[in-house]
């Protein structure tokens, strides 16, 4: 290990932060760019399943909340693309990679939102799982990523609570509303558990990310925390978690849960989930149909700077 690398590792081991212009191993840079880009893509693709319900929200109050939440997710994407750019990545290139299917986003956003209860379940479960993943990242060794995560985490709590509140209303509503709530939990539970990524024995790069201070807890540790936090909430709602093997272990103080269907996870990852093609097509169309706005803004800016020079 040469002096630069030693200095880098000492900073990381001492819980210090690496800043954009510091020396860093190329693998660290590449890993971060990939992870932050994937995270940014998840935020902006994640606008789609919920955006689907903005025009059909059940009240003006719910609609205003949903618009604010979806707008936050756009903001999260922008914070993250900004963090990736401090590592030398180019935003246009990252978007091109997303559009070409060469960079991934979270598998969870490839499931459809077929009822209003799905919007509620997403806030509660998907944002809840995102919080579990993101809170440790506020202490990530890369400064700009950690700072972006602090901002994101401050906003996520509202996302989870609004979902839980909306689901509480349904769970205490008419029999039809209760069925909607239960149905949403049935469909979103397992995909939410998959959000933490493959199990530890199938997660080859985890050890390196831990040594670099990018990752603080393993996928399985975070998944367990999520289950422990969420199952009592489901019970409070009077809903049933769709896992016949789920039980509380008095000795460990943790919930034991059933086997995750990893075949489904890897299939969705490969592009074969219910909505993969639709999500990407919608994203590409939004980008292409917005081209004239970017061109007009650039033309306007050029015209004005030319006038300033002339004046």
């Amino acid at each position, binding site marked *: 290990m040469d002096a630069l690398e030693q200095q880098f590792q000492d900073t990381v081991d001492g819980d210090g932060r690496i800043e954009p212009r510091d020396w860093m191993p190329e693998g660290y840079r590449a890993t971060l760019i990939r992870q932050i880009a994937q995270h940014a893509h998840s935020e902006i693709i994640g606008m789609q399943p919920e955006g689907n319900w903005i025009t059909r929200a059940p009240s003006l109050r719910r609609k205003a909340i949903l618009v604010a939440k979806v707008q936050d997710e756009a903001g999260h994407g922008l*914070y993250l693309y*900004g963090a990736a750019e401090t590592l030398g990545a180019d935003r*246009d290139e990252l978007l091109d990679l997303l559009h070409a299917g060469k960079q991934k986003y979270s598998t969870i956003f490839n499931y459809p939102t077929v009822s209003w209860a799905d919007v509620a379940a997403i806030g509660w479960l998907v944002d809840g799982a995102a919080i579990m993943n993101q809170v440790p990242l506020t202490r990530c060794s890369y400064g700009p990523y950690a700072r972006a995560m602090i901002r994101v985490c401050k906003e996520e709590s509202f996302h989870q609570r609004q979902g839980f509140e909306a689901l509480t209303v349904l769970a205490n509503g008419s029999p039809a509303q209760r069925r909607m709530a239960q149905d949403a939990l049935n469909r979103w539970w397992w995909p939410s558990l998959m959000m933490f990524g493959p199990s530890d024995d199938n997660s080859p790069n985890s050890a390196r990310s831990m040594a670099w201070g990018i990752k603080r807890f393993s996928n399985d540790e975070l998944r367990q925390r999520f289950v422990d936090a969420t199952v009592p909430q489901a019970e409070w709602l009077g809903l049933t978690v769709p896992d016949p093997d789920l039980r509380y272990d008095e000795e460990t103080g943790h919930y034991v849960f059933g086997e995750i269907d990893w075949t489904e996870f890897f299939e969705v990852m490969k592009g074969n989930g219910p909505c993969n093609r639709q999500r990407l097509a919608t994203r590409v169309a939004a980008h292409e149909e917005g081209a004239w706005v*970017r061109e007009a*803004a650039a033309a*306007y800016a050029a015209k004005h700077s030319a006038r300033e020079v002339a004046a």
Partner: protein
Amino acid sequence: MSTSQPPKTSSGSPLWEVFVRSKRGLSHTHAGSLHAPDAHMALRNARDLFTRRQEGVSIWVVRATDVVASSPDEKDPFFDPAGDKVYRHPTFYDVPDEVQHI
């Protein structure tokens, strides 16, 4: 000395660094960066991106290429002149316990 960022454009839009004053009496603090075609749009985008919950009462935007920064090394000789001047701190001086208000 060098500029802090390589010049970057996204879809022809330059990168801007954003500084937000959270309330009167406090300094502007770096909040992050964004792309915008001109200063006017950069300010509007910064408002939408960094002050959606009244986090600020004033915003500065600066073209990233206009920021000039010192080298990133914490042990840089650039900061050496301050290293051996402990007498600039009040703790350098002995004041007897019985002397008050100093």
